[in-house]
């Protein structure tokens, strides 16, 4: 069965420092992968997605992610974190039927000044 693992429950980063959030997936074929961000009390906003092609994908708000098939990973990165980036981040993969997103448990990002 497909699954997504986000190993880090909570990460604290200093403002201006770089960020990497880890995501590992379990999926038999080429996965469709997503990163979403959720601010407190809000819905989910799509940051970026990978369907095929270039394994380094660019998203909104200066985020990027790299798909590594050999490591079954899709890690999210940002070179310089801003205080407004503090939020919950979710990695997701589409199920085999192509209908449902399967989410990880999320990583909470705190930004210190």
């Amino acid at each position, binding site marked *: 069965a497909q699954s997504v693992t986000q190993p880090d429950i909570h990460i604290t980063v200093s403002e201006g420092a770089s960020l990497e959030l880890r995501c590992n997936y379990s999926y038999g074929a080429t996965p469709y992968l997503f990163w*979403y961000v959720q601010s407190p009390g809000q819905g*989910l906003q*799509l940051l970026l997605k990978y*369907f095929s092609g270039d394994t380094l994908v660019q998203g909104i708000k200066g985020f990027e992610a790299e798909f590594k098939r050999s490591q079954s990973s899709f890690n999210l990165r940002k070179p310089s974190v801003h205080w407004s980036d503090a939020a919950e981040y*979710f990695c997701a993969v*589409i199920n085999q039927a192509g209908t*449902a*997103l399967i989410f990880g448990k999320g990583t909470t990002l705190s930004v210190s000044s």
Partner: protein
Amino acid sequence: DAGVTQSPTHLIKTRGQQVTLRCSPKSGHDTVSWYQQALGQGPQFIFQYYEEEERQRGNFPDRFSGHQFPNYSSELNVNALLLGDSALYLCASSNSGGPPNEQFFGPGTRLTVL
């Protein structure tokens, strides 16, 4: 262009009651999915509606049911509420002719069961 809208924003019910949540999809979208997000967890897929039919269902009991209307809006109904049904319920819409399952989420309805 309005995004995905959901109503109500918050809801408080007691055990055993029934609740109906509503969702209007993003303009141009014809598919609606519902997710349950318990506190501290990632969203879990409940079901998806397309052409007024339930296309796929996640691992949720029959107490959870839904409906899609001709204008593509959707309702989620939960009967015989349990304390464990307390969660944020998210609606997501997508275009069946668009990129694979690129889903746009609404702000959610926070359901509290006492």
